[in-house]
């Protein structure tokens, strides 16, 4: 029987954002984005679940040392914490900081860094905007 083992760690960051497309009329922006167009932004306590997979090291009994995962992912998450995502991060100059787009940015950063620093595969991320709304991102071949 083939099995897969994963480990997930949770991170939190608090940030504000605004949904707005400059070349759309105010009416169109309000129609599509609703309350999220509020001019000075609004915020959420985001919760990020980072799931990695790989063989369990027979000596340490671990896929990855959790403190390594915490250090790598923590450094990335830090860039988003207590920031206005539209202006205070470089990632949303030309895209709206929706939950989908924030998750895509986080996935890309995490995937690259985990591979580089720990040689580990990112299995999936789940980003909660609130308790009742979340986005999952995982590789297309899974």
């Amino acid at each position, binding site marked *: 029987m083939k099995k897969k083992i994963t480990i997930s760690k949770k991170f939190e960051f608090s940030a504000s954002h605004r949904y707005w497309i400059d070349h759309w009329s105010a009416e169109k922006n309000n129609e599509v984005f609703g309350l999220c167009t509020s001019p000075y932004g609004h915020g959420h306590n985001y919760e990020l679940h980072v799931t990695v997979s790989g063989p369990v090291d027979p000596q340490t009994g671990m896929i990855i040392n959790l403190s390594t995962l915490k250090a790598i992912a923590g450094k990335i998450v830090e860039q988003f914490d207590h920031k206005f995502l539209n202006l205070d991060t470089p990632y949303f100059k030309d895209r709206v900081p929706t939950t*989908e787009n924030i998750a895509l940015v986080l996935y890309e950063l995490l995937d690259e860094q985990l591979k580089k620093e720990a040689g580990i595969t990112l299995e999936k991320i789940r980003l909660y905007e609130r308790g009742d709304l979340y986005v999952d991102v995982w*590789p297309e071949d899974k």
Partner: protein
Amino acid sequence: MKKVQVALSKVFSFSAAHRLHVPEKDQAFNQQIYDKCNNLNGHGHDYYLEISIKGPVNTKTGMIIPLTDFDQAVEKVIAPLDHRHLDHEIDYFKNHRSTGEEIVKYLWQELEKYLGKKLFRLKLWETNNNYFELERID
């Protein structure tokens, strides 16, 4: 960038009454199969429904489906069930039992009219202790 899949999930709720009962069968059968869910005058639940949509993220809006459209579609499907007796007031349950399995199948059928192939997964909580899932696997 590596090719990825993206799914968005949102939780909604509705409260409804129902009774599990097979009309063609006698009382003993119904009592044995459904036990307290067969209570003559019905009973109710606060149902929680987690709806997942999957698809490409629109490069302009940054969304799989604009959330306002998503919410409106869900409202159309859920509002008719809220504070209703499913077996007495919803046509589908005239000839389907109002079990979690059937409710989740009904919700899929209705939601797919608005969400199409983007509808990816439903998770219906009947109580805190039992839930039903329906997922597209093609």
